[in-house]
C-alpha cells in the first residue's frame, strides 16, 4: 500500500523520541572502558631494578632511564622519561618488565597544551620525590 513506508518511518522516530537517550554526558559520566584498554603508563619506582629492558623493547625508543650506583653497587633509579608523543601504546615495555614495576592504567585524558608537555617523567628526582612523600604525610 502507498504510504506504509512513511508510516513505518514515523513510528520508528516516535519510538526513538520516547526511548532512553544514548548520549553520554562526558565530564560527568565516564565511559565503561574495556578491560584491556591502554590509557597511560605508571611506574612503581621501588620495584624498578633499572634493567632497561623496557627501553630496549620499545620500538620507537621513547623511554630514557637515568640511574646511579649506590653504596651496595646496586643501580638505583634517578629518572624515567617517556616521550608520549611518539608512543604507539604497543605495551611491549610492560610485557618485558620482570618486576611488574611498569604498568598500564586506564587514564585516557592525555591531551596537553604544549608539545614538550608530552615528554612525561614517570619518576621525578629524589629530592622532589621526598618532598612529595613529606607532603602526602602532612596531608
Amino acid at each position, binding site marked *: 500500500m502507498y504510504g506504509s513506508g*512513511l508510516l513505518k*518511518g*514515523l513510528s*520508528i*522516530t*516516535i519510538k*526513538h*523520541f520516547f*526511548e*532512553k*537517550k*544514548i*548520549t553520554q*554526558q562526558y565530564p560527568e559520566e565516564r565511559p565503561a572502558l574495556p578491560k584491556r584498554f591502554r590509557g597511560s603508563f605508571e611506574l612503581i619506582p621501588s620495584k624498578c631494578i633499572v634493567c632497561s629492558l623496557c627501553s630496549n623493547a620499545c620500538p620507537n625508543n621513547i623511554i630514557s632511564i637515568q640511574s646511579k650506583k649506590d653504596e651496595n653497587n646496586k643501580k638505583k633509579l634517578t629518572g624515567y622519561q617517556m616521550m608520549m608523543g611518539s608512543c604507539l601504546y604497543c605495551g611491549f615495555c610492560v610485557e618485558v618488565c620482570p618486576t611488574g614495576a611498569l604498568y598500564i592504567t586506564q587514564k585516557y585524558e592525555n591531551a596537553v597544551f604544549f608539545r614538550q608537555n608530552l615528554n612525561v617523567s614517570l619518576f621525578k628526582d629524589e629530592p622532589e620525590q621526598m618532598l612529595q612523600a613529606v607532603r602526602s604525610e602532612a596531608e
Partner: protein
Amino acid sequence: MDIFIVWVEIFRHWLTVATGIPILAEIIVKAALTLGVIIFVLLNLIVLVWLERKLSAFFQMRRGPNRLGPAGFFQFPVDIVKMLGKEDIVPANADRPVFLIASICAFLTAIMAWAVIPLGRGLILEDLSIGIFYFIAIGSTGTIAFIMAGFSSNNKYALLGGMRAAAQMISYEIPMVFSLLGVIMITGSLTLSKIVEGQKSIWFIIPQILAFLCYFISSIAETNRGPFDMTEGEQELVGGYFLEYSGIRYALFMVAEYTHLVAVSAIAALVFLGGWNAPFGLTFIPGFIWMMLKIYFMIFLFMWVRWTFPRIRIDHLMHFGWKVLIPVSLINIVLTGIGIFVFRAITG
C-alpha cells in the same frame, strides 16, 4: 482571554477621551496591537528554535542542548548574540539594493500573514471577510523575497535555490488552496472566525481528512522544510537562496521561516482542528490555551516529519505535486460537493 479584549477596549476609550480624535486613538491602538502580535510571534520563535533543537535530538536519541538554563532553554540569547556579532557581508558583485531588501521582504511577508490569524474569540487584528484568501495571497508573495535573495546574490547556487523555491511554492500553492476550498464550501465563508464557529459540533478534520493531508503536505513544501527543503538542500546547493547572507540578515530569513511555520500551523489548527473550540467539552480551559496547544501540536507534527524523512529529489517533488496532490485535492472538492448536495437533499 476576554479580559484582554476588555483591556483593549478600556485603552481605546481612554485614548479617545485623552486625545479627542477617534481616528488617532484607533491608529495608536492598532499599532500597539500590531506590536503585540509581532512580539507574540517573536516569543514563539524563541521557543521554536529551542524546540527544533530539542526535538531533533530526541528523534535521534540524543539529548540536545542541556547546559544553559533548564533543559538548555537559554541557548537562544547565545544564538542571538552570535548572529548579531557576525559581520554583515554583501558580496562584491551582488545587486546591492535588492540584496539588502530581500531579507526584510521575507520577514515582512511572513509577519503580514498574522494580521488575519485569530488566537481566540475576538483575538484578531483585523477579521477580514476574505481572511483565508488574504493569508494565501500573502503567503505566496514570500516567493518573491526568495527569488530576490537568490537572484541578487550573484551566485549560481543561490540562484538555483531561488528558482527552486519559486517552482516549488507555486506548484504547492495550488493543492494548498484546493484543500482549504472544501472547508470553505462547507462553511460558505472565507472569514477565519466564521470557519472556527462552524466547527463547534465537529472539527473539519473528520469530514475533510483528505484535505487535511493535502494541506499538511503542501504546507511543508510552502514553508520549505524537510523533506521538501529543496531550496536549501545543503548537499546540493550548499545553503540555497540565503547562501550569501550572514549575521542579522541570515537571522531574518530564519525568523521568516519559523514565522511562516507558526502561521501555517495556526491556519491548520483554525481550519481543521477546531481553532479555539475545546474538545470533549473541556471548556474550563480558555480558548487561547487550546489554540496554542493545537498550534504546537501541528508544529510537533511538522518537526516529526522533518526529522524522519530524507529530502526527496526535485523532479519527484514536482511529480508528486502536480500528478498526485492536485488530483487528490480536486477529488476532495468533488466529494465535498456531493456530500453537501446529499446533506441538503436529506435535510431539505
